[in-house]
């Protein structure tokens, strides 16, 4: 389908309504749920609303208002569902982190929730900045190769001496000491977005070449040998992440992301096939070569044999889900802190225990909404770069959610990624809000009535 067809389709179907009012109401709803969850945690665990509650209600509310106002000003036609959905996820995440703080100590001295609320404020700032400085997503295409360089640099940062740091076995952190405080962040979270920009810009240019078929084998059109270059580079880079940083999740995310975007851009199924073969070969080799991969797979197959050792995390996570059952034990009434890393990788099992299957289904549905709204933006977008960008951003969230939630639920081997918007962690939160800002930017362009569209050549 050509870009022109989409434009006409969009014009005929979409009303020029901005629907910011709808968004506001949904935001009020999301805010109310977040505040109610926070209040319940306080009342159950402290028998009263804490001072934290007031700060939360105030800061979270103002943050959402700021995000909403940013959209009204900078992207009035943007999708009205995305912001309330991620706000709801973020609110529930903050409430759960607060709840887990209280599980450690009813009078926590340096609660993680406060840090996370700080990151939320920064994230909203970045959200605003992205909308402000990226007034048209097509500008980003100009920085395709700059994005590649930045992306690769970010990926390599943790390997550098002095600033790179290894935490919990994965060398994916950069640690900076500024005055009395030490800041750690995971550059891969930011690299994710920058590399999506690169993939989109690169594929828009190269997609016709990459779509060329040379031979047909078993009903699959295989590309020309020399066109295999890019996917091989992506593959090697992913393996590099795996080998040097021991970060299975990021490795999987980047390779899956690249292959999916390649498929979307070229409309050739053969790329999925080739990607699958390369992935299988890489996975097999990694399994043979690396103890930590074998360990992960072993734990996945049977977490209970070494339940008090290596399988502890996963076993505890499953106990959390089981303990929650269908309705959950209620916020503040379970023992989600029994699961190590409940605030980060395993926050889903904390929700599973306290909000039950019902809560998990709701959270997964929220992620489904984010992903599908993103993909819808991609479909509705009029330019190829925007389409690939929006699709790439949505796919990134989709893969990340599947990999981390599937891991803590023992659907697939555990890999260690943050759960977008829920997990404790500044880099992840800030990066994901920036990601949503970009999606909304594309969405604004896609939904804007044509008469307002600036006349610019579509690449």
């Amino acid at each position, binding site marked *: 389908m050509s870009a022109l067809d989409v434009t006409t389709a969009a014009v005929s179907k979409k009303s020029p309504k901005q629907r910011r009012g709808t968004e506001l109401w949904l935001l009020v709803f999301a805010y109310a749920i977040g505040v109610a969850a926070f209040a319940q945690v306080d009342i159950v665990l402290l028998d009263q609303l804490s001072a934290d509650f007031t700060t939360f209600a105030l800061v979270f509310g103002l943050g959402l208002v700021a995000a909403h106002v940013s959209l009204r000003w900078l992207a009035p036609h943007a999708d009205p569902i995305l912001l309330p959905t991620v706000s709801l996820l973020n609110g529930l995440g903050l409430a759960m982190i607060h709840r887990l703080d209280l599980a450690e100590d009813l009078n926590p001295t340096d609660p993680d929730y406060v840090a996370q609320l700080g990151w939320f404020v920064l994230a909203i700032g970045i959200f605003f900045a992205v909308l402000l400085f990226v007034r048209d997503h097509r500008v980003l295409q100009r920085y395709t190769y700059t994005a590649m360089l930045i992306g690769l640099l970010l990926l390599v940062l943790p390997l550098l001496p002095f600033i790179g740091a290894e935490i919990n076995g994965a060398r994916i952190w950069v640690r900076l000491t500024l005055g009395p405080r030490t800041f750690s962040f995971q550059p891969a979270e930011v690299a994710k977005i920058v590399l999506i920009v690169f993939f989109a810009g690169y594929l828009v240019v190269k997609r016709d070449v990459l779509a060329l078929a040379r031979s047909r084998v078993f009903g699959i059109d295989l590309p020309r040998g020399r066109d295999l270059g890019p996917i091989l580079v992506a593959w090697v880079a992913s393996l590099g992440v795996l080998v040097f940083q021991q970060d299975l999740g990021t490795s999987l995310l980047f390779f899956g992301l690249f292959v999916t975007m390649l498929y979307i851009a070229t*409309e050739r199924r053969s790329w999925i096939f080739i990607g699958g073969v390369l992935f299988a070969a890489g996975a097999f080799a990694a399994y043979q070569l690396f103890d930590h991969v074998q360990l992960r797979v072993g734990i996945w197959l049977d977490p209970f044999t070494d339940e008090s050792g290596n399988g502890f995390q996963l076993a505890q996570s*499953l106990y959390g889900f*089981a303990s929650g059952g269908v309705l959950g034990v209620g916020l503040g009434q379970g023992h989600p802190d029994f699961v190590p890393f409940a605030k980060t990788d395993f926050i889903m099992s904390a929700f599973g225990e306290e909000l039950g299957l019902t809560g998990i289904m709701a959270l*997964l549905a929220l992620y489904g909404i984010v*992903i*599908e709204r993103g993909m*819808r933006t991609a479909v509705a977008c009029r330019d190829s770069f925007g389409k690939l960008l929006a699709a790439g951003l949505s796919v990134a969230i989709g893969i990340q959610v*599947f990999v981390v939630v*599937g891991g803590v639920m023992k659907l697939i081997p555990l890999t260690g990624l943050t759960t977008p918007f829920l997990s404790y962690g500044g880099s992840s939160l800030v990066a994901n809000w920036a990601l949503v800002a970009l999606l909304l930017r594309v969405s604004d362009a896609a939904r804007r009535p044509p008469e307002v569209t600036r006349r610019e050549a579509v690449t």
Partner: protein
Amino acid sequence: MNATIRRTAATLGLLIIALMINANVIAVIQNDELRARDGNRRQIIDEYDQQRGSILVGRKAVAKSVATDERLRYLRVYSDGPAYAPATGYYSVYGATGIEKAENDLLAGSDDRLFVDRLTTLFSGQQQQGGNAVLTLDADAQRAAFDGLDGQEGAVAAIDPRTGAILAMASSPSFDPNLLASHDPTEVSDNYEKMRRDPGDPLLNRSIQQVYPPGSLFKVVVSAAALSSGEYTPNTKVPGPALLDLPDTSATIGNYFDGSCLGGTVTLTEALAISCNTAFAKIGLKLGDQAIREQANRFGFNERLNVPLTVAPSIYPDDLNAPQTAQSAIGQFDVRATPLQMAMVAAGVANDGMVMTPYLVAEERAPDLSALSITEPEPLSRAVSTQVAGELQDMMVTVVANGTGASAAIPGVSVGGKTGTAQDGKRPPHVWFMAFAPAEDPQVAVAVIVENGGRLGDDATGGAVAGPIAREVMEAVLQ
């Protein structure tokens, strides 16, 4: 590109659905199995989060839960722990035994009969509590039994012959369940390890979990079989030589004392009173193993009982040849019995031939102490006819009045009893005593064993070591 974007969107949708299905599988299908796993600490924390019910003896709680400000809120406290440990068992973070285990649903409050109770507390916001178990034990009898054993390896079982209610269940050496009720898992496992390694085996409830050769106590069962066969009366004369050659072997059976029994011929009553081995071996040979086995089974041998603690089945073996039958008739060879089983033999005789099903829990009560159930006595089996029972009572009274059982005599009360000395390997013999009182209106039947002669060692006899303990337990009940 829209086609591939849509296809990708659909695939991502499928991934989310896969996660949803997986979540359903864990929370709905696997959850019971996962919750029940040992590694799941939530179960135990939840259990400790509410007040577990008490185990009562009379009006006194021998096990109760008291609030603490630790993470595990309630601490289990046992008063008079070692004395009652064989009955209460222990309740630890690693698991429970005894009544703590057998009545766990009631004590933890998860019993179906407490459903309405749970519902009320759910809506009223009160702290949920567990139900209470009232034991049949008689505090004085239990105390007398445990003090009587006085650290010697052995056990006492006493029951009310009319109902089967267990009045005393003591085992020695015992353990203090408080040491296992601590909330510190390391402390608990250290203490447990110490108890497990203790050569005295304090964790073993000898009164119901350990079987011993019953020795001469078994002569009462053989007497019952003899009288029931119709070929014997208490006055039937039987030969009681100094030595009895066992058929088909070179082995012989002698008496505990040197020489023949009262010159070589005794009545059945006299044979029991002086515990004449050769006479009973001969009777056993004449009756045959089949008749003795049937008689033993009517007293409860070879049967699995739950009181509700699991009782090891007492054994009268299958397919015995003649020498084995002769040895079995005096409670040797492979005949084995728990102290509770021997108390049931005494009780069956005392209760005019009817053995009542033994039980340890008299009442189950809701948290508000209203009764959920009161145990109704139930007959287990008719061991002998009323007439034979009467004859056996008289014979056993003679044992105490004029025979080996004098140490159990209580002034003014007619006591029936039987002593026993059972060889079990090369160590000093186990000494037994079983008894009932008063003969005309039986209120208590008791069996006592002291392993390997207790403090007296090789010099010990059932009369000297076990008899006085039996007497003290009976006196405690009769007071």
